[in-house]
């Protein structure tokens, strides 16, 4: 199981993957936006998205859980 956490304070611009999706290493899970820059958050290995903890428009803090891949 891999927990994907936020590296910085950001707004959630787009949620690309949904719970139940099969993802591969490097697939985009969500796109964050911070300081006028879009930052894709990527899967770090293959698996299934078992939890998506953020929604578009959320403001997340560094360390917040974004998704779980099992």
């Amino acid at each position, binding site marked *: 199981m891999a927990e994907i956490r936020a590296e910085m304070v950001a707004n959630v611009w787009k949620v690309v993957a949904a719970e139940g999706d099969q993802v591969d290493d490097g697939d985009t899970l969500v796109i964050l936006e911070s300081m*006028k820059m879009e*930052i894709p958050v990527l899967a770090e290995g293959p698996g299934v998205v078992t939890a998506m903890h953020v929604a578009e428009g959320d403001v997340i803090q*560094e360390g917040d859980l974004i998704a779980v891949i099992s």
Partner: protein
Amino acid sequence: MLDSVLIANRGEIARRVIRTARVMGIRAVAVYSDADAELPYVSEADQAVHIGPAQPALSYLNAAAIIDAARKTGAASVHPGYGFLAENADFARQVIAAGLVWVGPDPAAIEQMGDKIRARNLMEQAGVPVAPGSRAPVTDEAAALAEADRIGYPVMAKAAAGGGGIGMGVAADEAGLRAAFATARSRAERFFGSPEILIERYVERARHVEVQILGLPDGQVLALGERDCSVQRRHQKVAEETPSPGVSPALREQMLGAAVRVGQAVGYRGAGTVECLVDTDAGSFVFLEMNTRLQVEHPVTELVTGIDLVEQQFLIAAGGSPSFDPAAVRPAGHALELRVYAEDPVRFLPAPGPITRWDEPSGEGVRVDSGYQAGNTVTPFYDPLLAKLCVLGADRAQALARAREAVAAFAVEGLKTNLPFHAELLASPDFVRGDYDTSLVSKLRPR
């Protein structure tokens, strides 16, 4: 003379405008969002009006709230700074319609230059060199591919209504262009509200050099020297200098002359910047775009000319003459600007957070335009610019030495900044020699 101004901006540029307003005896009104209530510019203004929540669309891009704030505070004029509504012709028109003085160029000039394709066509007519590129907007992939075939690869796809490097992509072939076009179009729609794309020949070894112009009420257009802005990451500027080490006196004369023709072609009034690409191999240049506002990096021009550009903006907006003799402008010395960003210095990713310590350098030839102080929190809602560290030296070597000392003395704690990157830049042989182009930062950060 104007007696008051509302500054429709935030951070360092709001503070910068307030400083000159104070010297000129102009009452300064600030506006701020929920995120910025604690920033220095809010308390330094004579008056400050809360205009909305943190999201730019609801505050600094909210024209109605800003004009309402100007009315309520009895401000006589509006200074837009840069970014946000600074190059929004509709906003300029609303300001004027509300009976306020717009501290900027005529809205028609903003409009003509805001559309990059229209601007290129206009410049070509005025005899200013432009890179091979689209004469009409491209909105679908097939048309983009056809244009690229006509122009020749490599090409760049960018938003016709865009700016700030957002959504720009380079393509070396068809496959690359399909991807670059899709990205550029989605960014163009999202950030600039228009899907129109410009396809332009990409110059591989290029310096980004711009000319500061000042249009006077009598129609005269002055060129106040150039700035080299080739140190960029993600097509965004990180450091600037004047004069450009890559521009010969003969090329400078041509560029300044072309910039004056650009200004005259649109009847430009006030401070503006003509951006060009200099082909370092060919020693030639092409017009890139014009920014119809005060530029972020205007301080380097101020340092070598001794001219306060914001003061000229106020004087010209009021219909008056500049404070200096146009015939007696003699730039002297060498100036650098280092943009201090809230970002990690290795990957350049945004790093908002609290500022626990903020000690600015000072000393001979050092100028810091900052938007923050210790105790402030940098939020993710706006651009990452914390401060502009500028230095003036008698020559480039002295400017570099002063910049190194100033970077070492700039102490910021609590969040990551790119100050360590600036220390590296100032030590890199290519930069020290002045022999660099827009690929410099990627060379310092090979993947």
